[in-house]
């Protein structure tokens, strides 16, 4: 017996849900969704539990992660209830619930908090630069070091506990019985999904979007590798330099296309944008662009006289790795991969 909580949708609205209450439960959204199948029928069932405010059902559900937001459900919704956007909002809601620090929820719900965090970190970087007299010789290796530390600590302190929390909510609590062996068996799926996001291909006419995404993920990961482990900014290896250019160019070109479609709102997926969506694409664009320009300045030998450029890059980088990666939209990518992994285990366990 579950008790209905009609106020829940009010809370959900803070995460961007459009109007799930408008739903009259025709099931059209589920029927048009190519990712929905007999084992996982959504989004209508998620809309329903959201409207009823059955929080335990939502928290234990992995369905929101199975959706890639092609937007078909929303364009064809007879009541304009926007189930696609609801699924998106549920993902944000779930991240907020997984996140032990509570910062994700705060940043999603409050634009002010986000702005303060971004400005705060920017100030911190500038203060750090000031303390080192803006000497790039000193600062660049420090920046490089920060990258490595940030990756390690964000993952171990925030993301790993959150994933464990996610597992607890979606696997342990609902009583999924799976042997350790299954966890190993499904591991392959985790890797594949994480790097290819191949499930998107299940969506109709989504091939190009998937390709863009795939290229972006490859570009992003390899740029990360190139800067952190191949030390792109300080290397003299021509191959690495060119590789870095290509990678960063890919990032800003692809993200530019994303930003453009968000502005034009010509696709269902880009009709509604939450601040976190904007921040993600713009910062990714800035990351690629500033990295590109910094290396360009180095190669043109003008960075010494334009050290501000490096600081811009560093600010973007710090904000990215301390806000967007652990709490922002970047984390979707991680949770989604794990959701897929858990889902696979669930399927194997049955």
């Amino acid at each position, binding site marked *: 017996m579950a008790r209905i909580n009609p106020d829940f949708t009010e809370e959900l609205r803070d995460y961007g849900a459009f109007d799930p209450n408008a739903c*009259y*439960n*025709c*099931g*059209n*959204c*589920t*029927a*048009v*969704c190519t990712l*929905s*199948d*007999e084992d996982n*029928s959504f989004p*209508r*069932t998620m809309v329903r539990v959201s409207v009823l405010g059955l929080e335990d059902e939502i928290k234990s559900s992995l369905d929101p992660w199975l959706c890639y937001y092609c937007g078909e459900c929303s*364009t*064809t*919704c*007879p*009541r*304009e209830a926007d189930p696609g956007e609801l699924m998106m909002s549920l993902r944000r809601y779930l991240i907020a619930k997984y996140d032990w620090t509570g910062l994700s929820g705060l940043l999603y719900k409050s634009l002010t908090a986000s702005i303060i965090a971004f400005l705060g970190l920017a100030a911190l970087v500038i203060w750090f630069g000031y303390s080192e007299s803006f000497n790039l010789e000193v600062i660049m290796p420090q920046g490089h070091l920060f990258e490595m530390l940030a990756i390690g600590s964000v993952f171990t302190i925030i993301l790993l506990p959150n994933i464990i929390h996610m597992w607890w909510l979606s696997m342990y609590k609902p009583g999924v019985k799976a042997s350790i062996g299954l966890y190993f068996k499904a591991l392959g799926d985790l890797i594949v999904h994480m790097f290819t996001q191949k499930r998107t291909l299940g969506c109709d006419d989504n091939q190009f979007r998937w390709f863009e995404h795939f290229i972006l993920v490859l570009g992003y990961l390899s740029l990360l590798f190139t800067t952190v482990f191949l030390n792109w900014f300080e290397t003299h290896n021509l191959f690495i330099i060119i590789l870095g250019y290509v990678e960063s160019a890919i990032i800003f070109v692809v993200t530019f296309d994303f930003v453009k479609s968000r502005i034009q709102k010509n696709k269902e997926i880009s009709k509604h944008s939450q601040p976190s969506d904007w921040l993600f694409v713009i910062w990714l664009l800035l990351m690629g662009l500033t990295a590109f320009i910094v290396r360009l300045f180095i190669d043109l030998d003008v960075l010494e006289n334009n050290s501000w450029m490096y600081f811009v890059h560093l600010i973007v980088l710090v904000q990215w790795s301390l806000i967007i990666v652990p709490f922002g939209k970047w984390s979707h990518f991680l949770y989604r991969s794990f959701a897929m992994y858990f889902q696979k285990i669930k399927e194997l366990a049955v």
Partner: protein
Amino acid sequence: MMQENIKTLEYDVLVVGGGIAGGESALNLANLGYKVLLVEKELSIGGKMILLSKVFPTLDCAACITTPKVSEIARHPNITVFTGAEPLKISKKGEHKFDALVLQKPRYVDVDACTGCQLCEEACPVSVSDEYQYGLVGRKAAYIPFSIASPRAAAIDIESCILCGACEKVCPPNCIDFTQTEIKYLVKIKSVITATGFKLFDPLKIPRYGYEKYKNVITSMQMERELAPTRPFNTVLRPGDGKMPDNIAYVLCTGSRDKSVGNPICSQICCMYSIKQAQLLMGALPMADVTIYYLHIRAFGKGFNEFYGQAQDMGVEFMKGKVGKITEKENGNLILRYEDIEAGVVKEAEHDMVVLSVGILPNLGMEEVFDNERLKLDPFNFIDQADILASPAKTSIEGVFVSGTASGPMDIPDSILSGGAASAEATSYLRKENTI
């Protein structure tokens, strides 16, 4: 229009639309002694109803009810019927004073002389899609619209005609006349009743249902014709390949209650006509399964809920869930994807024929006809009822009344009551002229 010789006619009331509602209004007024001009744009009066198979919830055959009404209208001394005609302009000249410019399109047949022998039809070499059979079969360019049409007289479809003259040669009373031209009448009237009816939703607007692309996906109106006494195939067959279907699906709310196609309201009749067709199909094809995919069954009228129960008892399957999309198999069968709401699971089902229960949309145009005062429409583009609770037939223009589905979706009994209401209000409006 300047040099034309326009005939002037005088009547008490102009009724625009000769469907069942307009007909009821006209008959009531005529029975009270008022002179009525009934203008119908199609070639026959009787509206959509005359083309139906049977009517719910009594399963009376539609023709049995419509034809006597239609012949009563056609015969009534106080009613003049113009078919193939429409009002071009109506101007209000004052209280109880309207001038209507009515266009009579040429039929190329002298209606009074035609005996309906169909020899011209036999002689005509041309074959084009028959709109009165909703495209299921062809018809000739010289044709009688349908067997129970009123007037039951031939007409020439001049757009498809090759002017070979074959029809003329065989016509016994020599009633075919290609010299006919458009005639315009200036009709002076005291009151107007608009009974312009509705049009059906065009399922091409929902490409994922594959109408026209998949040949065994038809509209409910086409099924209505397949089930009617004057049915095009003599029995129910798939238009795709002539197979006798044994597993038929109904997709309710096609174009109704759907903001994504711009029609948020319920069409009020689709549930019931689908249930009716399902019952008829079970009678016509005893081995067939019929499944109705629905959102909510709107069985609200007198005897409707009982009729719904009757269909369930007969074995019609009701599945709660809107059909999301339809795909076609090699053999012409169709796969319907839907969520079984009760189970909360997406499912696919195979049917060999799919009927789209298309909704009702307003027939636009009448609001443009009134030239010095715009006829107000409601938010859904039906004719606005100015005093809906106390005087449902009143429109925004005094002296202009609305009858039947021109003001919104309605079933036949409601249309007839609405037709009665329009005639009642017109009567009291007309009587006021004498008391002033």
